[in-house]
């Protein structure tokens, strides 16, 4: 579903070249939930941006559903993101002048879906994330946890192949963090959507099936989590 091949990326600052990612290789199967774990500066956010097509790598290929997004131009990437990729941001990134339900509908607006159909779907997703009666409110009237749930609902509306979540619990307290993780896990199982979660917290990563650990731009570990082992799921092995 998601295949990364020999991915490298470096930033140029004048004559100085700083490598950020070096020869990353891994695959993520459809419907799995994977964490990208690493401390600050490890290159995990850069990897996420590359996989989402927001940046072009210096070297390597990124395949999503067998489409190499490295070869796509900006408009093709926009179309591809619209159809195949969902995003969950650390700071939710909802549009403040739109209502909750309008925010959830937004990716469908860019797809030109009819207002009736997108309203039905958005309402259904709000029910899924436990906010069935908040549709008409503005996002500023919601708590941080509720806003992140709206963001999750928004990421799911186009039924994407993969959802990239960048520190989805980074702005939340522990209790809300657990709630959001629980919702993500439920949706992962229920909708069979692939989740790639970027986090610097091992506790959060432990909720997923598999943890890819990055350090200094290299993938140093690819391990199945204890929770996944307990559940009997499958991908293992450690890369160094």
């Amino acid at each position, binding site marked *: 579903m998601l295949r990364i091949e020999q991915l490298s990326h470096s930033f140029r600052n004048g004559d100085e070249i700083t490598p950020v990612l070096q020869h990353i290789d891994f695959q993520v199967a459809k419907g799995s939930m994977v964490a990208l774990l690493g401390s600050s500066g490890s290159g995990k956010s850069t990897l996420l941006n590359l996989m989402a097509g*927001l940046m072009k790598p210096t070297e390597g290929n990124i395949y999503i559903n067998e489409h190499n997004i490295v070869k796509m131009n900006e*408009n093709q990437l*926009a179309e591809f*993101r619209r159809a195949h990729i969902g995003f969950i941001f650390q*700071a939710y*990134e909802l549009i403040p002048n739109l209502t909750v339900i309008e925010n959830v509908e937004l990716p469908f*607006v860019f797809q030109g879906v009819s207002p009736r159909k997108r309203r039905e779907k958005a309402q259904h997703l709000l029910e899924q994330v436990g906010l069935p009666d908040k549709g008409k409110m503005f996002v500023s009237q919601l708590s941080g946890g509720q806003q992140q749930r709206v963001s999750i609902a928004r990421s799911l509306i186009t039924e994407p192949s993969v959802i990239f979540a960048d520190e989805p619990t980074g702005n939340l307290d522990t209790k809300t963090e657990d709630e959001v993780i629980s919702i993500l896990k439920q949706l992962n199982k229920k909708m069979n959507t692939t989740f790639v979660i970027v986090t610097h917290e091992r506790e959060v990563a432990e909720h997923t099936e598999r943890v890819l650990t990055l350090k200094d731009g290299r993938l140093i570990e690819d391990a199945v989590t204890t929770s996944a082992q307990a559940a009997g799921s499958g991908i293992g092995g450690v890369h160094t």
Partner: protein
Amino acid sequence: MRFGDYIRLSFDQLRRRKVVTILCALGISIGCAAIVVAMSIGESAAKYSEMQMSRWFKLDEITVSPQSTGQSGDPSAKSEIDEGSLLTSQKLELIRTFPHVQAAAPMQEIGGFQTKLTNGTTSYVQVIATDLNSLQAFGHQMRLGAVSDLPQTVIANFGATFGYVDDKARQALYDKLRLNPYDDEVYKQLENLDRLPANLYQQSIQFVQYDQQSGREYLSPPLRVAGVMKKPDSQTDNMAMNQKIMYVSLETAEWLRKQPGFRPIESDSSANMVSTTVEHYPLVTVKVDSQDNVKQVESKIKQLRLNAMHNLEQKERLKEEFAMMRTIALGIGLFILFIASISIVVAMTMSTYQRRRQIGIMKVLGANLRQIRNMFIIEATLIGLLGGIMGVIFSHWIIWGINGLVLSSGAEASEVLFIAPWIIPLGMFFAIITGILAGLYPAINASRTDALTAIRRD
């Protein structure tokens, strides 16, 4: 992305930034109002001048004269008459058969005469000799009586029935004026005298002719007023009262000329007319069914080796002058709009920077370059539309205010300004176009926003 969604999202943005939106729209509205008001003043002035022209000049009539007549005033021209270029009765008959010709008749001014009624009151009229039976075809309608075939009859127009005053009374007022030329009261009294109506129908009148050399006064034999015309619809009362005309038949004109002391006092051509009624005419007036066909009839007349003159050229010259005036007015309005457009460019560019993060999110969620660009262009278009609507409202207030001032200064209702229906869409068009053009740069700028840079939080 659906058009309705573009409108909704753009409208939301404008609603969020009310003050900036209103200020931008205000700038556009001033430009739009300037265009509408300037164009309306030009249009009203053009319409007023056209109306005045139609009142004073017949625009659907052609004056025909022979090519070799002594119109130039050169008496020797008579001896060089080429018979083929004369305006003969056969040619007149032929002109009457031309398409679009409603009437054609000799129509010649005999001159201005003092007119005396049996009660001794007098007034002044112009006397025109023509084929009286053609008057109705020339658009004159009778109020009283009818055209008569009998000799020594006249037809008076509406204006010729006013202003019959006793000579002594008039003279007394003139004497007062001589003593005090600034006496408004006397002017008013004289004006009122000129507006006194007289019942001329079936009355006997006499024309008075003065011989300037001997100082002697000649009175014509009595003539009977066989008919009185209606006031033409296109003329105001004031205009009609000042146009005092009596029509006589060609035969009556001939008879009049033979009276002791009487002779046509105008040009030699008039003399020609009276003496050669049967053979040829110095002047014939042709009425055409529409102004649009005047040139076509004119060219056919010219093919008969005749001179043809009409007033359309004056109208066209006037039109050209007003077209230039309109262009200048439009230019002023467009300049103001251009200045206003700068405010939109600035406001929208500012807004682009303020909304970089939002644009980035939209791009991450799948909005492409075109969609982002269109959102900003539609926003700018909505500002243009709003400015246009405000501009049209302002321009109505301005015109209403100017008209209030004009009317309070005693002007006629026909002199007020109006906004022609075609000016409003024109003003709106320029306002919207200004919005779109001003929105282009910010829109392109916004669409080029790098999504990653925009959403990054440092």
